[in-house]
């Protein structure tokens, strides 16, 4: 498993190494596919819309409800469908069962931090576009790590809305 060489030595890298080996056991699960009633509703709705008019779907993973609201507001206004998860594990379940075109993940969260989430997404969905976000100070090291793990873009949370939407649009159009 060579990709791990890019991770600097830290407790995070230990967690990452452990997760690589746990991936098949942690994200299998057909039982996850049956759970989330809200998500089922979204999927049903999607199924009824002709393929040509289905908007691109962005999944926002962040434990802070206020930040999810901000991102959802901006992206819905920009014409995207937005799914939300409050932690990495819930986000990965959504990725497993819904069509997601781009993932925005916070880097510091309970139940799978961003590093773990990106690593697993890269392992299981290598073509999915990923944007890593984090708080404004003292968090650059997390964004650098996200960059090394294969995030397509990294942003600090305080960036102006236009930059966030522009980054998403640019990545989506390159899909």
């Amino acid at each position, binding site marked *: 498993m060579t990709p791990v060489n890019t991770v600097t030595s830290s407790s995070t890298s230990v967690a990452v190494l452990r997760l690589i080996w746990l991936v098949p056991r942690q994200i299998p699960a057909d039982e996850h596919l049956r759970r989330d009633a809200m998500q089922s509703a979204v999927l049903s709705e999607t199924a009824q819309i002709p393929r040509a008019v289905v908007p691109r779907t962005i999944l926002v993973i962040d434990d*802070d409800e*206020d*930040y999810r*609201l*901000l991102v959802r*507001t*901006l992206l819905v*206004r920009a014409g995207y469908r937005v799914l939300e998860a409050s932690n990495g594990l819930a986000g990965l379940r959504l990725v497993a069962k819904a069509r997601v075109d781009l993932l925005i993940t*916070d880097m*510091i969260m309970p139940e799978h931090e961003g590093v773990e989430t990106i690593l697993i997404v890269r392992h299981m969905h290598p073509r999915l576009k990923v944007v890593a976000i*984090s*708080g*404004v*100070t*003292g968090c650059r090291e997390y964004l650098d790590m996200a960059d090394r793990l294969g995030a397509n873009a990294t942003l600090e*949370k*305080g*960036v*102006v*809305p*236009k930059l966030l*939407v522009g980054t998403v649009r640019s990545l989506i159009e390159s899909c």
Partner: protein
Amino acid sequence: MKDVEPISVKMPEGLEEIVPGYLDSRKEEVPTLLRLLAASDFERIRIAAHNLKGTGSAYGFEKLTEIGDGMERSAREANAGTLREQLNTLEEYLERVELEPGG
């Protein structure tokens, strides 16, 4: 009640509908943070401060990010005295903010 000089904050374009609600939530959060401080629950204060740091400037409030950053550090150090001062600063700032459209 003393008069306070207002601080004008321009709402970021596209977020005008949600910024007032965000501001109200922060005001409502202050008493909760004071209760947490009284209970020495520094971990929950740290989480709230981290979120304040992350969302403040995104919603157009650079000052909230600055206060949140300081509170997060103080909570990590379990520094109750500094936290109390920072919460006072937060409360005073929130009291003075006036929103303007289109930032």
